[in-house]
């Protein structure tokens, strides 16, 4: 039986999209557009368009693999529908939650980083050594040089791409602005000043 001839108009971006797809499958960390442009030796605009095409194809509810913009690049992840099955086979990077101390420490590093352990301890009021060590071990923060100092200052830490991926952030700018977070201590301030007045009187 002869098949009827069909005129297939291939999208000119198809080949590029297939190449991008392959790169994203091989990568184990999000790939920034610049790296995709360098690898495909193609035009940045065309790469963005092809990523758009892939985004439509690998979409939540449409595919088991989802393309997302995360941690300053593009990466595949499992669709949320498949999370339960994935959980039976694999552990998430931060499966066993984070303690309050770890969360506060990682928040300080995310907002003020690169920062040192003494700086973290100064804000939290307790030593940050074990919290920092735990976060480094989990790959959520990493060393980022040292403070200036004659004999090499304290090690500075910053958050990693893994941090942004685990928390599903495109970049750190997605964190709520520090000024928008309630930090009012007006009542405490008044009480502190009242004490100060008594002492200076």
């Amino acid at each position, binding site marked *: 039986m002869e098949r009827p001839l069909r005129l297939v108009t291939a999208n000119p971006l198809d080949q590029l999209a297939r190449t991008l797809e392959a790169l994203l499958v*091989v*990568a*184990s*960390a999000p790939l920034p557009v610049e790296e995709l442009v360098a690898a495909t030796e193609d035009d940045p605009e065309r790469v963005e368009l092809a990523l758009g095409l892939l985004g439509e194809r690998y979409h939540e509810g449409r595919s088991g693999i989802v393309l997302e913009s995360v941690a300053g690049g593009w*990466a*595949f*992840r*499992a669709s*949320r529908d*498949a*999370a*339960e099955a*994935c*959980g039976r086979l*694999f552990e*998430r*990077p*931060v499966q066993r*939650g*984070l303690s*309050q101390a770890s*969360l*506060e420490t*990682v*928040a*300080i590093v*995310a*907002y003020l980083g690169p920062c040192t352990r003494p700086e973290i301890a*100064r*804000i*939290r*009021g*307790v030593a940050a050594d074990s919290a920092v060590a735990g976060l480094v071990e989990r790959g959520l923060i990493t060393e980022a040089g040292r403070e200036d100092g004659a004999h090499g200052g304290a090690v500075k830490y910053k958050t990693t791409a*893994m941090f942004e*991926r*685990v*928390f*599903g*952030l495109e970049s750190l700018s997605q*964190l*709520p602005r*520090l000024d928008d*977070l*309630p*930090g*009012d*201590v007006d009542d*405490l*301030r008044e009480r*502190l*000043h009242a*004490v*100060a*007045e008594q*002492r*200076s009187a």
Partner: protein
Amino acid sequence: MIVRELDLDLDAFEGPFDLLLTLVLKEEVDLADIDVAGIVVRFLERLAERDALDLDACGEFLVLVAALLELKARGLFEDEAAELSELEPEEAAEELARRLAEYRRMKEAAGWLAERLSSERDRFFRVGPAPFAPQPERRLAQQDPESLANVVRLLAAEPPAVSLAHMELRFPPVAQFLERFRALLGRRSVFDFDSELEGLSRAEQAIAFLALLDLRRSDEIRISQAAPFAPIRVSKVGQESAAVNERTNAWNVRSA
């Protein structure tokens, strides 16, 4: 109620309150590990068991807990205690309020992250080391075999013999010093060894000392020294005074 006998059952400590205070003052218990709020709760529980309010006990407890809290606060801000104490009370209050606000914001941020972590619970992705980037291929420039041969020829050449001239030590024989000291003792019955060494090299000084020991061995001289590192006095046998002789013998016995 006696506050000092208040029984405590905390994570880091179990026993009466006064023992805890003693251990804290002796720095055998780290105050940072002590839950002061737990102590307050325990006191309130004991207070509630009674019908009448024990004002004396309350007063004593307030003083002790306040002292404990102050110690704990100082411990937490050890390096900054001096810095803060230089401030005026108003400035210190403002600085404390600023820090509390900073911490409260970070606590809120931590809360936001905790919520985010929970909402992104079903996020699974590949984690692993990145594949290696390809090694750039190094292309060598066109090579001339003759230049390689020249280099090898250079390596094959016999290196010049290493001169050991600087390692040869030249010093006078012991006999020279033996003669010199004997001649000296012919003229003088006593001489100062150190002054005879002036102007000599270290090697010559060592040889002179060997000569001195040689003379002593053949019992031609007596050697005396008032104290370690003091000048060494050399005297002809039979010429030294009895006292010197005795002291020298004692010195020799000790040093032997």
